């Protein structure tokens, strides 16, 4: 489970002064559900997810991920999450197998656990053909599969996806979406950010609309449609954002 309580992140910039990238965000994401963060560029989605993944420390507020506090138990949090974003690149000079093995070892998996898990992951993702190819020689779609294998090798309870389809073609993006659904199917807690409305509509059980670091509206797609008396998520999003001072 993921639970954020008044999570705030302030960046201090010499030119722009204080920037509240995440402002009092509270959310709760249950196992077997996909929680979506919908927002435009600079809304604070990446910062929010980086806070939950302990890559950044909150200025104030708190969050619990998989039962561990992000402030006091960051290593335990990271041991229980799989973090995938458009920014999480691969080591180009390693082969797909070496890369996934490396992250398995970093997660403390002994060889007896690591080897069979790697075999089953590569088989499930249909990657055996590319396992000994260097990552920098792989196609974008296969690279994404390697990234997925990397996030799953330690079988985390929580999955964090930050715009995972950015830059992918339709087929690769569909494969990632299918993978996210599969994570939900396996009972994992999934939090997912995007600015693509259709992805939100297709995937998320709960949608939170984030703007200037704050959650302006939250609920299931049906609840949002009902509340704003509008069918189209894009129209709902624009209305909420435009109404915000």
């Amino acid at each position, binding site marked *: 489970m993921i639970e954020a309580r008044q999570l705030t992140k302030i960046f201090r910039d010499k030119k722009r002064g204080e920037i509240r990238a995440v402002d009092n965000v509270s959310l709760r994401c249950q196992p077997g559900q996909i929680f979506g963060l919908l927002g435009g560029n600079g809304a604070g989605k990446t910062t929010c997810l980086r806070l939950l993944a302990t890559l950044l*420390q909150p200025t104030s507020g708190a969050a619990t991920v998989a039962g561990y506090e992000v402030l006091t138990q960051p290593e*335990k949090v990271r041991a229980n*999450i799989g973090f995938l974003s458009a920014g999480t*690149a*691969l*080591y180009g*000079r390693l082969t797909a197998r070496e890369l996934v093995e490396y992250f398995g070892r*970093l997660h403390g998996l002994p060889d007896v656990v690591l080897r069979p898990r790697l075999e089953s992951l590569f088989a499930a993702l249909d990657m055996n053909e590319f396992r000994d190819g260097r990552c920098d020689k792989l196609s974008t779609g296969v690279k994404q599969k390697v990234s997925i294998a990397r996030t799953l090798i330690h079988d985390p309870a929580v999955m964090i996806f930050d715009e995972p389809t950015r830059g992918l073609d339709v087929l690769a993006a569909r494969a990632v979406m299918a993978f996210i659904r599969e994570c939900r199917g396996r009972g994992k807690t999934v939090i997912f950010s995007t600015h693509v409305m259709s992805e939100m509509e297709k995937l998320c059980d709960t949608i939170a609309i984030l703007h200037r670091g704050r959650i302006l509206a939250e609920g299931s797609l049906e609840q949002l449609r009902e509340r704003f008396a509008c069918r189209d998520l894009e129209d709902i999003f624009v209305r909420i954002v435009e109404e915000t001072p």
Partner: protein
Amino acid sequence: MSRRAIAIVYRKELLDLLRDRRTIVSMIVVPVIVMPLLMTGLVLASLKLGGKMRQEIPAVMVLGGEDSPETMAALRALNAFSFVPPSRDFTNLISDKNINAAVGIPTNFDAAVRAGESASVTIYTYEGDFKSTLAAQSLDQFFQSMRERIVAGRLAERHLPEKLLAPFEVRKANVVPPKRVSGNLIGMILPYVVIMMCMTGAIYPSIDLTAGEKERGTMETLLCSPVARTHLVLGKGLVVLTVSLATACLSLFSNGAAVMLLKRLAGNATGGNPLPLTIDPASLLAVLVMMLPLAIFFSGAMLAVGLYSRSPKEANSYLQPMLICAVVPAAVAALPGVELNYPLALVPVLNVSLAGREIMSGLFHWNCIAVVFGSMCLYAAATVALAVALFKREDVLFRT
């Protein structure tokens, strides 16, 4: 988990680096092949060119001397010079390298010498020009031997012994064993080479493992792992240290082999007198031990700079001036009169360079050496601590 995590990061980073052509070039190709080849080629070329120039007959102009047939005849009989007709423009001819030297013989030189009067011969040269210097040396030798012959003749005429002009001899005797003489010579260069190679070897990996990771987007991937950031940076630091030391050791080995080859070749060229170059393995080992904290110091400092930088380009712009800052103290140690003392033992880089020079020449001032080693260990710990601290700062890791 900590040691295991450091070992996992170390193994992966080393494998990753060794698969990069740029690491192989900076760690193996440059120190093991390019530098010794350049050094050997340069020395061999200069030996060959020097020998060739010595065989060439210099073009010399004689100014005056028409009334001194004996001197002129003796000069021509040498067959060591190609004589050019006299000209008033001789200074320009020398400056433009049309002739190598000129010699001014005063009026009635032979008669003055016969009469026992004082006379002055002037040799005109292009100072700093190798061919002109060789020509001037030959002319100088000719007139010196002529003077000695005249002096010996005058003494014989007066039935005086030749020893009259040399009541005693002055001899120089080296009391230091050849190993220490050689160590003193090598000690001027070797620590400098090792320091430079330690630093040069650390530059590329320190950038690649930090700013390079940021640029490629793999830093965020790595930070998602549950390994403590201290262990991540220590694993990376150990890789930088390994490459730095490997570069220095490979460079020492290959340059040492090149020096031994040159020693033999130069010995043949100088008529079988080998250059006094022998390396004491124990001293060499001691120098390498002294270099260890220095290599850690460089690795930590460069890792910190790489971490702070947004991109490899920015890191490079910081590290190049850093390289120059290290060259100066390393080179200062080779200056005459700069000796290891307690204040200098606290100056990073210079202290190791000076200690290395003393150790190579067989001097072991243990107190000073202990201060050098201790202070360098402290500096090394400080740079590693700085790198660890920077790796924990999100404004540094996500600096854009």
